[in-house]
């Protein structure tokens, strides 16, 4: 068991999968000579050559579409989209093509492709470079959307995504790249579509994904240490398919829930989670489901404004307190 960064886990997994399977290749902007905007692909061009680590022109629609076409013939492209913001240029190829080709041709060919891309704010990058728009993809049948929060999960989910026969949007988060965690020496591919209870508890369920799953974990530990509150934490890991069962099972146990998400509130992922809880655990609920999300503004540049816009450990703690107060469970 080694303690490594999220970045390292991604890098190692790409390398191992390329060694394992000749059909796996990397394609994207600045991933070769420049070694990746976030250095996930460092050293891979040197090791595998231009055929397997392909620098592209700045043409998101063109190279994402080319990856889809290559995947249709059985290759396993792993695309790096510099950030999720630029995926909008390739939206047609992702939503109209990658997601639909298996279905609209009656299951005759699939698209075993991974689109790795970081999202998220907090780096003072302004409105067009700080978006959490994974929901756009999680909305689409035919796509799979995964969002690991820890190095171990990054590895397990990337393994699963590369070996999956469907197009997978693999969401990273800028603020997670340098976080560290234990990664077992041998990691099995995760089961895509399974959430994980990362902390057992009885007082309240806190549901998050990606960065906010990490924040939830940290807040739960602090609340336990400081106030004796026993929160259960569910890390979604997969936004589509969505593991409603794990969510509902947890809420049936605790009777209340807070959803923590980095995206915007209205129509956001949390809305779907809240609806799932209402569908599956309404009779068990002691309080309305609360949601902690980003302020509904284009993310500002100025540090205090940006900080105010994004959900934080403090805002999550407040929401948990409010919910526990409502059910009279605050100690």
């Amino acid at each position, binding site marked *: 068991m080694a303690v490594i960064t999220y970045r390292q886990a991604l890098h190692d997994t790409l390398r191992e999968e390329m060694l394992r399977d000749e059909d796996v*290749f990397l394609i994207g902007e600045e991933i070769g000579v420049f070694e990746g905007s976030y250095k996930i692909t460092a050293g891979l061009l040197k090791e595998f050559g231009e*055929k397997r680590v392909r620098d*592209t*022109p700045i*043409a998101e*629609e*063109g*190279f*994402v*579409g*080319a*990856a*889809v*076409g*290559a*995947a*249709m*013939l*059985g*290759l396993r492209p792993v695309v790096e989209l510099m950030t999720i913001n630029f995926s909008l240029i390739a939206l*047609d*190829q992702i939503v*109209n*093509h990658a997601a639909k*080709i*298996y*279905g*609209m*041709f*009656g*299951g*005759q*060919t*699939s698209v*075993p492709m991974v689109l790795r891309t970081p999202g998220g704010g907090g780096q003072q990058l302004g409105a067009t470079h700080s978006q959490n728009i994974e929901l756009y993809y999680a909305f689409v*049948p*035919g796509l*799979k959307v995964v969002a690991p929060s820890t190095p171990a999960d990054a590895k397990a989910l990337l393994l699963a995504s590369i070996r*999956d*026969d*469907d197009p997978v949007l693999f969401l990273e988060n800028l603020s997670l790249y340098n976080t560290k965690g234990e990664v077992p020496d041998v990691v099995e591919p995760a*089961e*895509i*579509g*399974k959430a994980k209870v990362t902390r057992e508890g009885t007082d309240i369920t806190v549901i998050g994904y990606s960065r906010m799953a990490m924040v939830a974990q940290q807040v739960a530990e602090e609340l336990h240490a400081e106030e004796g509150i026993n929160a259960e934490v569910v890390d979604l890991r*997969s936004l589509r*398919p*969505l*593991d*409603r*069962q794990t969510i*509902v099972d947890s809420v049936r146990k605790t009777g209340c829930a807070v959803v923590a998400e980095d995206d915007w509130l209205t129509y956001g992922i949390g809305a779907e989670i809240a609806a*799932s809880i209402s*569908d*599956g655990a309404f009779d068990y609920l002691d309080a309305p489901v609360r949601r902690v999300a980003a302020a509904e503004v284009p993310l500002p540049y100025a540090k205090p404004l940006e900080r105010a816009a994004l959900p934080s450990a403090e805002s999550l703690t407040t929401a948990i307190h409010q919910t526990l107060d409502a059910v009279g469970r605050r100690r």
Partner: protein
Amino acid sequence: MAQTATRSKPSTRSTAKRRSSGVRGSNRGRFTGESPELLQDYFREMTLIRRFEERAAQGYTQAKIGGYCHLNLGEEATVVGLMRALRKTDLLFTNYREHGYAIAKGIEPGRVMAELYGRTTGTSKGWGGSMHMFDVESGLLGGYGIVGGQIPLATGAALAIDYRSGDQVVMCQMGDGTTNIGAFHEALNIAALWNLPVVFVVVNNQLGMGTTVDKSSAEPELFKRAAAYKMPGERVDGNDVLAVRDAATRLVEQARNGGGPALLECVSERLKGHSVVDPAKYRSEESVAKAKAADPVLAFRAQLIEAGVLDEDSAAEIERQAQAEADAAVAFADDSPHPDPSTLFDYTYATPVANDSRRLPADPVF
């Protein structure tokens, strides 16, 4: 012959033909070196596509076919000429106007019609319809309904062939209106940068829905765009099946032998509206009359008879057979089963998902 990007004066086979027309047997020379059987075969296939499309239009007005239905009427010489340049193992990506290509690439007309009818025996088991036919065995890797969406895909397929050092070539068909969408430029640039085995074909029927090519393209001689991507660009008379075949064969073989991508423009005219429901009111009478006069199927028939490759009787017999084949396709489609609603969730994911929350609205979640 073909016009290349470096030559600017058009000199097509048809102008050569026009110069010498009017004299019986004047077309004999243009078929020199062609096997009569092959010429008859081209005529047979062009006629089959014509009859098939007429039946498709009929099926649409009878409401047996739904959605959109874009026909190849007037483009048969281009369709057959292009497909004869490909091997069976070569791959084809097209736009939504692909019925003729599906047939000429080797798919049973019955399966093509069955797809139009939305039946399980169709090329996409009824999931695609007119715009989304697909058949791995014959190398049709799809008709696509988003203008230009197929171009990056075709480029990626060529990338996969190159990756595996295969000897297949990809052909990517599109219309003239498509050359203005970003995907066209991104994909051609990538194909040229990586020297991929793909031939882009613009079927210039001079209209994108109701917009003429000169109103949508700043440079309406579309083959010239190839120059921007440092690839060969050629223009041929799309009503001349042999000219199309020859130019396409040359570019396809060049791509097969490592020569990289190319752009071929085939100039023809649509005989009817954009789709079956379009009465094409935006077209002038002259334009329609001109298209009719240039009808590639009738023109080829006349040329073959003039050249002594066909006589009236054998031409009529080929037409009878084509009609019978189109009718049989309709009968096959009509007799084929509709997909069962219980199969609704069969084709969303190739790798089954751990936790499947797709469901019919009436199903309870838990």
